[in-house]
């Protein structure tokens, strides 16, 4: 299996704070990889480096064989990486349909085609009955769904999900998990997800990468990672091990 996304020793500091230090991992084509770690571990910084929000201080990001570190986020998106934001950023003054259409225009020849694409994505995410509502009127779980819908509408090869399950009820989480499974198995969509909801991480991920203080401390199957003493220590403290 070839790696669709390769993170090669990337580092990123904010003034004195070394948010990410020499982090390396790979996301194989067609796989779901979970990125976990305690608060402040550098997960979102990692995402933002991949998505083109930050330029890394060192290291390389390769996507489908091309170096993409230093690209702008719109270029990264057009290259085939869709992302969601941990703090949702809906286009509040637009309808759900218009929100998703903006994403769909990325891969559509025109507005009509984008509308059709948006309709099908909205249907998939279970937002059909809210399609004409203003995004500002949505509840938080629906806003999370909208984030996913918008990113999916750009027709990505790799989807970066930043805590899209946070704040969802267990049944809603299960629905989301089922959706990502389907996207992964039927369309072969590769997914890299940051998640605190372990129920989702364990159910979805083939591999899990654990970050702590900006460094990779463990990587492997979900089962192996959860038994790793280093992981237990960073989550529960040394005395728990």
């Amino acid at each position, binding site marked *: 299996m070839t790696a669709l996304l390769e993170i090669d020793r990337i580092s990123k500091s904010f003034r004195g704070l070394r948010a990410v230090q020499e982090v390396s991992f790979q996301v194989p084509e067609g796989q779901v990889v979970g990125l976990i770690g305690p608060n402040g571990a550098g997960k979102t910084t990692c995402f933002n480096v991949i998505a083109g929000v930050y330029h890394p201080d060192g290291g390389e990001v390769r996507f489908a064989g091309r170096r993409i570190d230093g690209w*702008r*986020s719109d270029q990264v998106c057009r290259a085939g990486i869709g992302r969601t934001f941990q703090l949702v*950023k809906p*286009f509040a003054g637009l309808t759900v349909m218009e929100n998703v259409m903006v*994403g769909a225009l990325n891969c559509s020849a025109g*507005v009509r085609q984008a509308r059709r694409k948006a309709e099908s994505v909205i249907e998939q995410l279970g937002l059909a009955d809210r399609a*004409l509502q*203003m995004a500002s*009127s949505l509840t938080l779980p629906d806003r999370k769904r909208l984030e996913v819908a*918008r990113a999916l509408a750009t027709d990505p090869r790799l989807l970066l999900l930043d805590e899209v399950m946070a704040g969802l009820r267990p049944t809603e989480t299960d629905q989301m998990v089922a959706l990502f499974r389907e996207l992964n198995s039927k369309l072969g969509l590769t997914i890299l997800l940051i998640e605190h909801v372990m129920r989702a991480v364990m159910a979805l991920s083939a591999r899990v990468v654990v970050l702590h203080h900006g460094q990779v401390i463990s990587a492997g199957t979900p089962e192996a990672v959860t038994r790793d003493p280093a992981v237990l220590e960073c989550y529960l403290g040394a005395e728990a091990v």
Partner: protein
Amino acid sequence: MIARLTEGVSQRGLMLLAALLAALLALPLAVNDYLITVLILILYFAYVGQAWNIMMGFAGQLSLGHALYVGLGAYAAAALYVHFGVSPWIGLWLSMAVAAVAGAVIGFLAFRFGVGGVYFAILTIAFAEFARIGFDHWSWLGGSAGFFLPVANYAKNDIVSLRGSPTMFYYVVLGMTVAGFILCHVLMRSRIGYYWLAIRESPEAAQALGIDIFRYKMLAVVISAAMTSLGGVLFAFHYNNLFPEQIFHISRSIELILGPIIGGIGTLVGPIVGAFLLTALAETLGEIMLLAGIDVPGIKQVFYGVCLLIVVVFLPDGVWPPLSRRLGLDDAKAKRREGSK
């Protein structure tokens, strides 16, 4: 073609638009020259307000220096006409080009170096001020003493040189307003319109969805500037005199954005409704004051201020959104927006 243009407009809306257009076309038959000049002013503000709205209402970039584009457009076409006898219909292309370049320079400086919000607004003011001071000292264009076009011969209308009666100017500016309205309608239903709205709502999210925000913001400034400059051409040929102190003055920039603010920022009809309300009311007030023998300097400005206050307090979205609901023209979107409050 027609079907595409009217897509997304309700039957009722189309009928009302057609009726309004018919009334505006027939109006010169019924009113005197004074009212025609007032109507020219109204339509002029509706047109430039529409142009400004592209930047602020659609792309979310606040320009407080749009007088720059009016002035550049006015001077470019007027200079070609006075010095070289070039028809304004040819001159207007130079006007648009000059304004577009000016807009591109401001846009490049701002968007390339991440100048946004109020700082962007200040940059636009600064450039209008540069132009005001620069033109004040440019003797080829009359400098601060003003630049004058040969006064119109009212006996015959010369549409090629834009010399003629107020009625002729009225039809010209009406044509511009209609064309501007249609252009904005088409833009808003195209990719560029959706991208502008996305950038207005959240630049980060827009960029994450693959939008080259620098490029689309540049497009907004350039289109808005070129469109505004045509207002300047009309201004020059209608009023026949240009003074840098007036045409580039910040009060002119503010004046032209009041229409869309009162009418409804980001709506297509807002700038037109706002221009009608403000100009018509200000003129009426002027008349009333005159009849009552009250000659208070600056009363018009005070009235503008009060109007703005009322709208900001009672109609924060402008006059048009609630008015369109009252007229039964609201799309489902407006209804839901109301419902969600």
